[in-house]
């Protein structure tokens, strides 16, 4: 049952929390309401999850959608998430989303068009990401391999942690990893020869 009591205090009463980009677990202050705790968590984890999503899908717009979907699911299970490290919980949700898919209801996407230039105007973040050789190379990997490589080498998880995160065996992690690295070698070598 996910019918925890909802918001209580106004958002302005919530202290700002600095981004937690390192390895330290994100902890929610004991006694905070569901919404206060969740707000703190979003502030602390937003950039981390957004970068993770970009690495997984290679598309900043899609990444925003994925992060939003992640937060929606995390909020739904907030009681479980907050009892541990909610960032780990959310990351697990994120990496197991249908990264390469399409959300059925685009109207759910929270994007402020004021912040989005007209399509004729260059999109700096999108352009930077699109030009990024690592993002391009990762995008050429099958999703299973991409997930393992990103978690293992760009989020610095151990093989055991990756296996737990993806719900697969360590042997499968090793196998995906080996194939992913072999493919990346080819891709980077191709790039060097151009």
């Amino acid at each position, binding site marked *: 049952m996910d019918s925890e009591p909802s*918001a209580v205090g106004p958002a302005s009463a919530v202290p700002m929390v600095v981004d937690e980009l390192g390895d330290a677990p994100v902890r929610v202050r004991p006694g905070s309401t569901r919404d206060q705790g969740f707000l703190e968590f979003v502030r602390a984890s937003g950039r981390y999850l957004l970068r993770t999503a*970009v690495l997984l899908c290679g598309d900043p717009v899609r990444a925003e959608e994925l992060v939003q979907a992640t937060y929606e699911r995390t909020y739904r299970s907030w009681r479980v998430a907050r009892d541990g490290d909610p960032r780990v919980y959310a990351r697990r949700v994120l990496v197991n989303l249908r990264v390469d*898919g399409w959300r*059925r209801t685009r109207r759910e996407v929270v994007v402020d068009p004021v912040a989005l230039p007209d399509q004729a105007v260059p999109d700096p973040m999108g352009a*930077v990401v699109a030009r990024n050789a690592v993002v391009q190379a990762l995008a050429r990997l099958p999703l299973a391999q991409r997930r393992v490589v990103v978690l293992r080498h760009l989020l610095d998880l151990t093989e055991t942690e990756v296996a737990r995160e993806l719900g697969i065996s360590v042997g499968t992690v090793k196998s995906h990893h080996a194939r992913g690295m072999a493919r990346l070698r080819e891709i980077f070598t191709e790039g060097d020869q151009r």
Partner: protein
Amino acid sequence: MSVRLHDDDVIARLRAGAPGYPDAGPDAERTLAAARRALRRGRGRRALGSVAAIAAVLVGLTTAGPIELPGFDTSVIPGWPDTNSLPNQGDPPVYPRQRMLHDVADLELQVLPVAESMALTMYIDERPAWGRPGCRVLTWSHGGFRDRVSSCANPDDPELPFDTDSEAAFTRVSGAVARSGVDVYRIEKGGWGPGTSFHLRDGSWRWNWYYSYIPDTPANAPEEERTQTSIGVRRQVHISGNWWFTVEPDD
């Protein structure tokens, strides 16, 4: 001559070349609001069965004569949030009446007959943007069809790729929309309340606008219905005959 890369080289390249953290994360309060709405939608879906049953009973009762529902406009469905739980976005803007009259006259003349003749239940024409291709969806008497590209379809989406007939049908609807001069990008039957809805393309993140054709609208229908939703006021304006205009906060 090619140089064979080792795993350590690959890892070093990944780490050195990967994009760093973005300057800013998602807006926390907006994210919270969206998460709460998503949670409510989930609860709403669960409650929908019972609500639909109640609605059916009410419809049945009203055929025998009007009934009063004391406090109906302020009651809260069990499991739904109270109406003050999210910031109100203000009074929704409505087009001038003359424009709405022109728009629905054009839609009725050009688009509605095409939609009805094709038994159309879904038409989406999302234009290409942000480096991704457009997305077209058409569900009509021949079945459901969708552009099968990753930015438009999930692998398990049931719709087929467009065939020749459906391409022609889609073009027919698009042509009718173009002739109407009303910038409609989405048409749905039964998806947004009763009747057929004609959604207006816009750049607003605050509002959704659409015209609805609701057959058998009573002659004494109210000029306007306002519904207080959890994210603001939803206004449904009766234009004329079976035509309505709705503006509601965009979730």
